[in-house]
């Protein structure tokens, strides 16, 4: 491995930032980004699961036979998802209610399985932690940015605080399903422009 730990970490923030560069894990991105708070909460949950599952997968990478690796990854990820689910139910109940079925659905988020398969299964623990943190934080940034955009325009608030004052007519399109798709598409377009691909 020629790449340093920092490089593994930084690549998740721009070069391979999900869901823009790696078009994976779109469902939670679209569904929970109605507000900044939801986006951030979801992001943090994903970071936790991703880092823990990366650690465990990379620790066990010499023990897991390659034929049943996908099943093993899924069980490992599902375990940590249950941990997050119970923690959120206990400490952040309102957020838990808002995110609803999307917390258990972290299990089938392709980002997690993708990282376990593409990175943690082939690399050491430290590098895997860096990779998990990088990709996870990248994912959180994307979710928060999209959440901010949709909340500011869709309901005229930011973290629940009014931005434009009472005369603002909310742009409801943004918080509904169609707005989610269009917003994400336009953000992807911006990313492509900035990366001048």
């Amino acid at each position, binding site marked *: 491995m020629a790449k340093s730990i920092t490089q593994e970490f930084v690549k998740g923030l721009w070069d391979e930032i999900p869901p823009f560069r790696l078009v994976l894990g779109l469902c939670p991105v679209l569904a929970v980004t109605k507000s900044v708070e939801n986006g951030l909460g979801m992001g943090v949950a994903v970071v936790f699961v991703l880092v823990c599952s990366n650690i465990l997968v990379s620790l066990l990478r010499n023990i897991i036979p390659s034929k049943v690796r996908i*099943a093993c990854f899924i069980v490992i990820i599902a375990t940590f998802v249950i941990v997050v689910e119970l923690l959120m139910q206990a400490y952040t109940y309102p957020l838990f209610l808002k995110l609803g079925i999307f917390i258990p659905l972290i299990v089938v988020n392709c980002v997690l399985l993708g990282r376990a398969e593409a990175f943690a299964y082939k690399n050491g623990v430290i590098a895997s932690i860096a990779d998990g943190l990088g990709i996870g934080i990248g994912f959180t940034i994307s979710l928060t940015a999209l959440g901010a955009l949709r909340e500011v325009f869709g309901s005229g608030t930011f973290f629940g605080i009014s931005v434009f004052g009472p005369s603002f007519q909310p742009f409801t399109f943004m918080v509904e399903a169609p707005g989610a798709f269009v917003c994400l598409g336009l953000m992807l377009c911006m990313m492509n422009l900035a990366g001048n691909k």
Partner: protein
Amino acid sequence: MGDYALLAISCILVNNILLAQYLGCCPFMGTSKKMETAIGMGMAVIFVLVMAGSITWLIDAYVLKPFGLEYLRTIAFILVIASLVQFVEMFLRKSIPGLYKGLGIFLPLITTNCAVMGVCLININEEYTFIQSLVTSFSYAAGFGLALVLFAGVRERILLARVPKPLEDTAIGLVTAGMLALAFFAFKGMA
């Protein structure tokens, strides 16, 4: 009977799994570039979702609930879905090779399709009866297929159009999906 028809229509159109509930977007973007693959994926999802919906309902009602193991639901469901997909794949390869060839590569992909897991969880959360779960599973899957086929049709046309460079591929796909979602949004008025 009327209730079930109403439930089915609301699942297919009003609460379309893809365009209103945002589930199953990854295969939606991935397999919609060609009409054939879209139809294959739609069929595979209908097939697996009906089976997964009924089996997870039974497991939840007769195994998890009586023993107070609801917190294991996530892990139990994903294992059931993964092994079901594997089993269906083996079964089809042996006994219905024609269908296996048609669905082929899409079957393994379904394991990580959040629509399948999502519908199973919705069925439990809404406390549907067994028959209702069957109806919702089938109609959600049919709605998924419908949206996928419609979208593939649009996307095939976009391939011929000149799209600005930064908007190419996924970006224009998402914007198009947004327009399609807007069309489906109109059904909300029916509910």
